[in-house]
């Protein structure tokens, strides 16, 4: 049915989309290979002279390496704890009859709509009182609670599709409860849990508001906050190229995850929101 002209149009549109989505990323990469001195002198897209200098700067700056360790550690811990909590809730919602089920789902929805900035002031106060200010747990706790809604929706939508009868079937066939769970349910549930983990990780990795408000030093400051505070190696040098090198470093894992798990992410983002 598709005529040659329509096909050419689709190809053109697809290429346009590719350029639109990849271009800013490519631009950051280009900046990261420019010499710091090029900023303010040559304004092209491509580097005038290519250099690894910025990457060296970035990995020699304690501010950035500490932030990278913080970001990775905090995001991973928040992801693991958050996904475990969300899995428990989603299992309960998909499998058990109990009062308050709808209330929990509505509450999660309310959290997802919550203006984070409204909480920053009081949390700042509270965290300073209880000694959580500028610590890993001080960020992990808010990350978990704001990532939970998406994880809960994704997982409960996913768990509802699992044929739970198979567990009993396996037991009838002579498997123990543990075997039935491990050999039947775990493989069925794993993709959903994994998708929720990716979405939770992205959420934590992306945070900025908590990162700048609830930290004050290298102890817990994550990368996005560190980038915003980075003013350059010396006061005579533009921080632009170094910031971009750091940005590339934290973007690489994201791009790899997207390339590898594109399908899972699409399924996760849509399953919770609109049933496809």
């Amino acid at each position, binding site marked *: 049915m*598709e005529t040659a002209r329509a*096909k050419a149009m*689709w*190809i053109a549109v*697809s290429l346009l*989309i*590719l350029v639109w*989505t990849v271009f*800013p990323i490519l*631009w*950051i990469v280009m900046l990261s290979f420019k010499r710091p001195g090029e900023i303010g002198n040559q*304004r092209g*897209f491509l580097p005038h002279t290519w250099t690894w200098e910025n990457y060296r700067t970035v990995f020699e700056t304690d501010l950035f390496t500490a932030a990278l360790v913080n970001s990775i550690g905090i995001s991973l811990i928040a992801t693991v704890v958050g996904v475990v*909590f969300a899995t428990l809730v989603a*299992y309960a*919602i998909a499998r*058990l*009859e*109990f009062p*308050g089920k709808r209330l*929990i789902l509505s509450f999660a*929805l309310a*959290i997802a*709509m*919550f*203006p984070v*900035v*409204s*909480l*920053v*002031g*009081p949390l700042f*106060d*509270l965290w300073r009182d209880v000694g959580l200010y500028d610590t890993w747990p001080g960020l992990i*706790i808010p990350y*978990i*609670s*704001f990532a939970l809604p998406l994880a809960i929706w994704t997982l*409960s939508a996913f768990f509802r599709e699992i044929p739970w009868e198979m567990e009993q079937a396996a037991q009838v066939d002579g498997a123990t409860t543990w075997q039935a769970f491990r050999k039947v349910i775990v493989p069925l549930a794993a993709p959903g849990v994994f998708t929720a983990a990716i979405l939770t990780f*992205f959420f934590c990795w*992306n945070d*900025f*508001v908590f990162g700048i*408000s609830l930290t004050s030093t290298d102890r817990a400051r994550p990368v*996005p906050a560190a980038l915003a505070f980075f003013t350059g190696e010396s006061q005579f040098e*533009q921080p632009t190229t170094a*910031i971009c090198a750091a*940005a590339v470093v*934290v*973007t690489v894992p*994201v791009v790899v995850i997207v390339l590898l798990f*594109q399908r899972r*992410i*699409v399924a996760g*983002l*849509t399953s919770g*929101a*609109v*049933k*496809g």
Partner: protein
Amino acid sequence: MTAVQPAPVAGLRQGRAERSDRSRAERRLGLLLSAPAVAIMLLVTAYPLVNAVYLSMFSYRITAPDDRRFVGFGNYTTVLGDALFWQDVFTTFVVTVVTVAVELVIGFGLAMVMHRAVFARRTVRTAILLPYGIVTVISAFAWKYAFDLQSGFVDSWLGLGDRAWFSGRWSSLSVVVLSEIWKTTPFVSLLLLAGLAQVPGDLGEAATVDGATAWQRLWRVTIPNMKAAIMVAALFRTLDAWRIFDNVYVMTSGQQRTETLSFLAYRQTITRTAIGLGDAVGVLLFLSVVLIAAVFIKGFRVDLSQVRGDR
């Protein structure tokens, strides 16, 4: 016969007792499994919110804790009577309306392409998803540097000479909006893609047979049939854009009258440490979010039961 009769009754009773025992156990387990998640969500939202409402009644700065005194709704009248607040409300409103409108249109286009793409389907989907994963702060830096006078290429590519984008209110805001659109349109397009998948294909065919043009099919068949998905996407993105912060912080720091509501609340509490006043702005921001959500849910009848996942 009479001797046998009691047996089934006893059995039934026993069954009922067993069932209610089991349902009680199920209830307990359900609440137990939900407890950790609910507890942590409450800890981070409910208590601080109540605290914010309480502190917003005081004139209170961290730097001078001894001067703290009760002022009732004084902070609110200060905020609501301040031209800066209304300027920020207007900025936030414009940013929200423009971003959401543009994103719905582009997002719909992207969804159509993902739905029907014949060419490099996987590559296109992956490309569309990329901005979703990019850290907002990094997207902000990318767009800022692209338009910046020191480093940017946009001026020379468009032949604009030395146009200083960040020296004017609306030109700064358009770059902010561009960055926001780039970063969040993938989310919109995925929601709309799921909506497109729900439009029955034979409806479109029937319309074609009846002689409808592609344009008519779009407006009379496709869009009405995916209204639920469109409204959900609009609601989520409206609330998200209304809370815009990262882009403004990185690109303009609120200079050139580009401050948004979230930025104002942040600046009062964290930068100026005027906790009472900042919390009043925060509470007003919270109330405005509730109001927007209510308008969407009651006014436009957005069906969120699907979003919540309870069918």
